[in-house]
């Protein structure tokens, strides 16, 4: 494997993102806006109460900062494959002597690095200085949080990968992507923290891949999980990453065979 090629793609993506300054300013703004809207809603709901079901307002704030922040970093490009199938430029990709999936990840990592520096950190700082948030429960938690966040990224990326692979058959998968986004945004606890889901629902969501994307890292950060729970939950993240990737890969192998390159 020629890593330099993948590195070059990551770097290219990072640099070309930097070219659109207005776009990234708007990105920061929209993440901040979402954060403050959620923050205000929950502050109103809390009123003067110290905590609800043992969950303090400050924990809620932390949940939003981290999950919105992580989602701003991750943001896999759902249109990477569909767009290339749609306009036929997938042929260019297939003409390169490198793994297509590796290249997909490389570009997304370039994006993620950009988002980490230019979206997550500004939003984090703004949140710390305005609303404040919980500190990590400890150094160990911080490290495990990072590991779990990377695994969460794995889950989110593979979900996107799986959805994108359907484009080989469906060509236009805009609506499928929208549905996926709804599932991810609602079931991951990004909009309604999973603490507040009714028990039966939380019980179901627990078994979906969505819950492990942002909520597991957040729980680790806040120190809500014992070591054995952490190991188990990270195992769940890994499990989903592997399973969904394998499914996506089946479609990828089949899709390549039936690929029809548009345009001539």
């Amino acid at each position: 494997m020629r890593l330099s090629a993948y590195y070059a793609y990551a770097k290219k993506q990072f640099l070309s993102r930097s070219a659109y300054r207005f776009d990234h300013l708007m990105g920061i703004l929209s993440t901040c806006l979402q954060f403050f809207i959620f923050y205000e809603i929950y502050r109103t709901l809390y009123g003067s109460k110290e905590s609800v079901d043992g969950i303090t307002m400050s924990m809620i704030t932390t949940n939003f900062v981290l999950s919105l922040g992580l989602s701003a970093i991750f943001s896999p490009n759902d249109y990477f494959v569909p767009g290339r199938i749609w306009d036929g430029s997938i042929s260019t990709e297939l003409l390169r002597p490198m793994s297509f999936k590796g290249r997909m990840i490389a570009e997304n990592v370039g994006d993620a690095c950009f988002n980490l520096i230019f979206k997550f950190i500004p939003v984090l700082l703004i949140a710390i200085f305005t609303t404040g948030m919980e500190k990590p429960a400890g150094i160990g938690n911080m490290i495990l949080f990072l590991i779990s966040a990377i695994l969460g990224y794995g889950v989110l990326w593979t979900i996107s990968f799986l959805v994108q692979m359907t484009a080989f058959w469906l060509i236009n998968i805009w609506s499928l992507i929208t549905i996926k986004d709804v599932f991810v945004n609602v079931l991951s606890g990004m909009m309604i923290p999973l603490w507040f889901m009714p028990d039966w629902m939380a019980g179901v969501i627990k078994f979906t891949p969505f819950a492990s994307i942002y909520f597991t890292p957040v729980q680790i950060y806040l120190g809500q999980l014992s070591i054995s729970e952490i190991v188990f939950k990270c195992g769940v993240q890994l499990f989903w990453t592997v399973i969904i990737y394998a499914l996506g890969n089946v479609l990828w192998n089949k899709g390549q065979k039936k690929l029809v390159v548009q345009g001539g």
Partner: protein
Amino acid sequence: MSFIEVSNISKTYKISKRKSGVPGMLANLFVPKYENKEAVKNVSFSIEKGEMVGFVGPNGAGKSTTIKMLSGILYPDTGEINVSGLIPYKQRKEYVSRIGVVFGQKSQLQWDLPVIDSFELLKAIYSIPDDVYKKNLDRYMEMLDMDKFIKQPVRQLSLGQRMRADIAAALLHSPEIVFFDEPTIGVDVVGKDAIRNFIKDLNAEDGVTMIFTTHDMQDIEKTCNRLVIISEGSKIYDGTLDGVRKLHGSSRQLDVYFMNDSEVAEIPDVEIVEVDKRHSQFIFDGKKVHINDLMSHLLGTYNVKDINISEPDIESIIRKIYSREKVAG
């Protein structure tokens, strides 16, 4: 076994038949109807190392589809392709590092980046050693006259400039085989010449095997000695350029320009190609048809403005072959 062996490849596209209007859309959703389009039918050929082969054929003949299969992007439905022991669509990664592909209609460069940055990216992708990269870049820069626009983003280039940049990009890693799909489309006369000379030099000096498609017969005349004609998915000619001419050995061509729009009636033993309403070509065998008879017939029947006799040029021979195929098919 030849360098490139193509045996009996076929490719059928499935086209969904769309009905228009809302009821049609609904019908489509529940009972999708497909139509099969046989783009390539049982095509075979073999190409030796260092050859330069031109593919021509009318629009929709299956040239691009063939190139896509040869470059490993499309799987043929049936048949096999073997290039020096590799199967393009199966051993894709290994194969594509040895080939270069230019799609005239589709740039493979990074839209937003200056040309030189795209080249640098390719250097990393193909792990091109520094000295090779520099040597090739300098050479292509000069041959394709690229120094004026090398620092401009691709989206700001003119079509001809973009094409030259695309050609250089496909060749930076010194591929053994290069596929060109309409490399001269939309390029002006001077640009076309530069591209043709470039292609010819590379073939002559480096022995690069080349296959290209074009609609410009001059491309073929100036670069290739072997010509493959494809029509409606089938190969109908494979041989030298001179061979095509010889097929029409003692033939003569009469170009007739009319004063007004004229409908030309059939004449026995004469092949008539209507270029436009006021210009038709009459191609005939000098041994069978007397030129005097033909001329007097034409002058007597139509309102003729100008007449020109020549040996048929390759363009009109090809045109004749195409139009005959259409009648036969």
